[in-house]
């Protein structure tokens, strides 16, 4: 029972990171109907920036700010320079360009920083506090949960309470009509990418100290897990992404805890396939007709 509780708390903490990652995917999907396969690589790049700044200034918080800022810039850059010019004749084109970006980012990181692991110290203690004899959450887990919660609330406020959020939603759902009504759809798209990449950067900063280490391929599996989380929640639903992230975090925590860490990729694949084959729109979708 102790072990079960321990795995549950650990699963919630990693699940929060997956939720943030999935949220980044959902943001771009809603804005541009693109699954950003470069999300993982972009997050690694910003995490490198974050930890380089952190070790130069000696402050984790300055590094975190630098990473999020780098995320904003990188997201806007990718949209302005690449994604805007991809032909839409074939829906695969955007995926292929994103995959090219993955190769490019990982190679540049490898050339600049080397392919080895780099130390990425956590700002808080990662040893679990014991509560009534049970190992529960560590201070670092609490920070992760808190940070993700704040981001989710801020994003919800942005999209539901501010004029810019309203314009972003309008541009995503009815680009033609919004354009007629004076919304700069292109700028909203850039903003969407920038926001998503910043959320991804935060998730990357949060996930790296948890035993993952910082290296160019750090997020390969994390991205697959985050994609699974987004699909579990339905790519269209931000709330679904958060629930999906926590759910996937819990399931993987149990699988890793009881069956061993090697089985994690297999569990991800099984979970992804199960959701896609049973409920292709995610757990929170309403039934929709399909053509063929």
């Amino acid at each position: 029972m102790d072990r079960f509780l321990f795995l549950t708390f650990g699963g919630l903490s990693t699940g929060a990171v997956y939720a943030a990652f999935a949220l980044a995917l959902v943001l771009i999907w809603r804005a541009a109907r693109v699954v950003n396969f470069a999300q993982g690589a972009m997050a690694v790049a910003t995490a490198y920036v974050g930890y380089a700044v952190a070790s130069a200034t000696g402050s984790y918080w300055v590094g975190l700010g630098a990473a999020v800022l780098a995320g904003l810039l990188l997201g806007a850059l990718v949209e302005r320079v690449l994604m805007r010019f991809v032909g839409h004749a074939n829906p695969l084109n955007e995926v292929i360009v994103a995959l090219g970006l993955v190769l490019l980012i990982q190679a540049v990181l490898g050339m600049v920083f080397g392919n080895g692991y780099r130390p990425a110290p956590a700002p808080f203690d990662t040893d679990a506090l014991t509560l009534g004899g049970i190992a529960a959450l560590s201070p670092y887990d609490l920070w992760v949960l808190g940070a993700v919660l704040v981001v989710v609330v801020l994003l919800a406020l942005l999209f539901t309470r501010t004029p810019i959020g309203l314009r972003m939603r309008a541009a995503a759902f009815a680009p033609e009509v919004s354009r007629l009504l004076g919304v700069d759809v292109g700028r909203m798209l850039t903003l969407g990418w920038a926001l998503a990449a910043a959320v991804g950067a935060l998730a990357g900063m949060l996930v790296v100290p948890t035993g993952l280490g910082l290296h160019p391929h750090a997020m390969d599996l994390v991205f697959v897990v985050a994609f699974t989380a987004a699909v579990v929640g339905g790519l269209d639903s931000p709330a679904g992404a958060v629930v999906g992230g926590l759910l996937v975090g819990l399931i993987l925590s149990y699988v890793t805890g009881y069956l061993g860490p090697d089985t994690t990729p297999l569990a991800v694949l099984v979970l992804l396939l199960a959701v896609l084959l049973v409920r292709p729109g995610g757990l929170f979708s309403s039934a929709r007709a399909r053509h063929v």
Partner: protein
Amino acid sequence: MTATRPSARSGVDRPAGPSPLRRLLPGAPAAAGPRGSTLLRHLAGAVLAGTLVVLLTNQLAPYQNLQVARVCAFLCVTAGYTVLVGLNGQLSLGHGALMATGAYTVALVQRAFDERGVQGRWILPLSLLAAVAATALAGLVIGLAAARLRGPYLAGVTLAVATLVPAISTIFTGVFNGEQGLRFPAETPPAFLGAYFQPERWLAWIALLAALLTVLLLANLVRSRFGRSLRAVRDDEVAARLAGIHVARTQVLAFVVSAGCAGLGGGVYAVLTATVAPGKFPLELSLFLLMAIVIGGLGSLAGAVWGAVLLVALQDLPSLLTETFSLPSGLAQRLEGNLALAVFGLILIVVMLAAPGGLHGAVRTLAARLRARRRAH
């Protein structure tokens, strides 16, 4: 895209020969020749190409022959892959994992015979056949799921498959020997070729035969009714369904064929070094393969050849650079591997943005434009 019957409602006389619709369809048989001529033409082309490459291998050094062999092994994979992605519109990122399936099957079959002391020339073709069968079966399983998935969803699932290779090899350490991988007896040239026959040349011949068989089979498949079904499903599923094409079956079959080719390529790739290890089939391998077919032009078999050649040539680029410019060892170490990655990524992006038809498509567009100009005069 079934046979076009002369429609009763149009009073216009149809021109003799192929219908205008057929001439418009990309890749549809151009001039309607007698049946079987396509096969003969492809066969003649394959024999010609094969002879040329065999003559070439006689002139090359061992390492260059090994490169020819690697090109041929990759060609098996890229040819099948480009048919799936380009002609059927299913983006799989799991072809590196499928190559691994073929490679491990060859290793396991060869080891099984070796442990029982059985030797013989027939073991190699048998193990390669087993590789094709095992990979086609894996492709059937993935394809059944893939037929229900579209675009990014399929890419995500197959990406998850690609991350599985190291995990599977460690979970079943007893069978696959974890990170270390498996060794099996190396392939040696037969005695009748003489005692001093270059082993690398023999390997190149084996890989060449596999590549020629694959391309020949695919070239005919692409020109067949099945090939037209593939394109019809890619372009418009509803229209394909209305034309009497079983959409899901076509998609699954395309995946199985493509997987079988990947298995053969993976098997040959393993034979070249007589080893398999999970480290040889990382996630990037699948992305490299994608680069290879994108740069050649999605859906074009000639493009698959371009891609396979570039794949091998560019992988040797960093070592070539370090030798020519005698770079300091620290820098050389960082460039090692990463430079090829960066070049591949850049190519993928630039080709997708500038020439989505790839090299082969660009050449074809140019040729068509020249022809049109000549006709105008």
